[in-house]
């Protein structure tokens, strides 16, 4: 690795030292900057309202939101896949088996395989995952690559993503409350509504690249 670095950066890698020296000279006379004040709010929401707020904000960003309990979950997943006309569903390695217990045989399950090419993933209709966390105030799902969520790409290439959120355990009110519960060094994807663009005369169009349909199941256990 270090060989490669020297080759591409050029002889001596003098820029590193030069940039650092220039920075030190530039701020030599600058006043000391204090530790930032953090007197902003930790949350803007009462704890009792977080699940409803999550549902509301997800829907506001055009995710389709469903609610059920543990017993109703398998049937709901099966129904959503059927209604969608999915012939294949992608399954991350650690997805709890009961979640897919009622998926009809007509929908083929494809285990995610790290060797699968992007082209192969592109032929899959739907994907079902869990999540690490959901943030109510922003309507955000946080995925961290845990076994029930899989690699970042599997929630990107298929056109239909069903994400299961355990409520209220996995719901936090706000971004400041989410940060300590997320492991920063994992491969993270935050999802707030389906892919969207407003590049053409600011008309919002769903899904230029990511899944055009995002369905979120809030499941009480």
């Amino acid at each position, binding site marked *: 690795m270090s060989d490669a670095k020297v080759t591409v950066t050029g002889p001596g890698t003098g820029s590193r030292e030069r940039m650092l020296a220039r920075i030190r*000279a530039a701020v030599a006379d600058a006043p000391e900057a204090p530790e930032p004040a953090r007197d902003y709010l930790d949350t803007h929401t009462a704890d009792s309202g977080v699940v409803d707020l999550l549902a509301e904000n997800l829907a506001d960003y055009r995710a389709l939101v469903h609610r059920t309990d543990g017993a109703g979950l398998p049937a709901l997943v099966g129904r959503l896949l059927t209604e969608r006309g999915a012939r294949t569903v992608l399954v991350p390695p650690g997805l709890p088996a009961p979640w897919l217990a009622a998926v009809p045989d007509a929908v083929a399950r494809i285990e995610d395989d790290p060797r699968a090419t992007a082209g192969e993933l592109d032929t899959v209709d739907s994907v079902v995952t869990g999540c690490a966390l959901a943030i109510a105030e922003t309507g955000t799902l946080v995925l961290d690559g845990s076994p029930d969520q899989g690699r970042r790409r599997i929630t990107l290439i298929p056109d239909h993503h069903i994400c299961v959120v355990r409520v209220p355990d996995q719901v936090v009110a706000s971004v400041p409350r989410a940060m300590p519960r997320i492991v920063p060094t994992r491969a993270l994807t935050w999802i707030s509504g389906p892919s969207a663009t407003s590049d053409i005369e600011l008309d919002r169009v769903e899904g230029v690249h990511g899944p055009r349909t995002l369905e979120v199941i809030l499941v009480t256990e």
Partner: protein
Amino acid sequence: MSGTYLGMPAFPVAAKEAVGNETLRGNLRHATHTIRDKRARAVAELADWDLLREAGKQIKDRTLRHLDRYLLQLEESVTAAGGVVHWAADAEEANRIVADLVKATGEREVVKVKSMATQEIGLNEALAAEGIAAYETDLAELIVQLGEDRPSHILVPAIHRNRGEIREIFRDRMGEWGRAAPDGLSDTPAELAEAARLHLREKFLRAKVGVSGANFMVAETGTLVVVESEGNGRMCLTLPETLISVVGIEKVVPSWRDLEVFLQTLPRSSTAERMNPYTSMWTGTHDSDGPRNFHLVLLDNGRTDTLADEVGRQALRCIRCSACLNVCPVYERAGGHAYGSVYPGPIGAILSPQLRGTRSEIDASLPYASSLCGACYEVCPVAIDIPEVLVHLRERVADQGGKGHRLEKAMMKAAGWVLDHPGVLAAGERAASRTRALHPSKPPGAGAWTDARELPELPPEPFRDWWKKNRGNDRKDSGT
């Protein structure tokens, strides 16, 4: 040469052309007003906005004060996580590093996620000169690239194109770059987006090398952050085997926790959303998830010069939200291209002359591309006092050769704003009496600006009142 805007006319000339372009003005007006109004609502949802803004400012100031320390910490964390860090003093060096990295993979094409840093250094052109094709994958950037055009807005780079023009560009040009547009393509946004989806997916699925920028880099953990809406960013960041990120040194933040401030203020200031649809965060490389090789190129290219200027260094706090563009009456008239830089609008007017120096005519004219109304400062989520820096830079330009007076008058004439709207001007002056020097019958010389150093202390509220009150008149005046 950064930005490849050689031969670009100075702001007054470019602005004059733009003001005469009715399509451009119509598009821009629609865009800036829509985003601006939505933004105000999104911001109003957070009762602690002012505290978040202050925290963002302080975090950035502290980062800049100890930038050497945080960059070294970042280098250590990224390296420990399996990435390779490169330091690039200028555009040429950054381009050389990226070109060599791409060549080392044996590939001849790269997919790119929209990045102002790579536009700033002219990376696509530099790669093309080495026989490497760089494909922009953001829908707007695709429109700009296919149209052989330049972006005109930080956030919605193709806002100067309307749907009819976009259909023409897709129909005529897509086939030359890859998958052609479908027959009978209409100009509905949904159909145009679908054509782009198919065209670009072909490229994503075969891409071996991705190039990106980053919105933030966390020193403590080595985490890079890209916020986006479309998912093309996620494609470029996770599908290729090799990922090269070119990032300005000012994008570092000390701690993971600092993100909680910017992830609240950036989306609301930028697209007026509570959160942007996708945020990707990666730390070095991850087992069987995403690229196996990750390279981070830390870019200076004038940033350390900017840092050395005690008034101007605050421009390095910018998180590129584009809120200042959308409230700027001069930007609305002149359009992004008139600024002759990848950084348009109020932030461009203070950033470009600092990054590039004020020697060229365009850069010397930029500090005058403003009415100093103060709206940009008011909306800035990191409280950059843009008017203060503008005045400071005008002094610098005046000191170097006394062009200021001429540029001043030319700018005001060309932007067609003040002279067309004496009533607006008068109301503006009442709201901000210290800008009296702006009156067209009495254009100030450079000296007047020096006297007005304390000028940026405009009362923000009166401006807003004034602006709201005058929207109606303005529409009538400009709807030609």
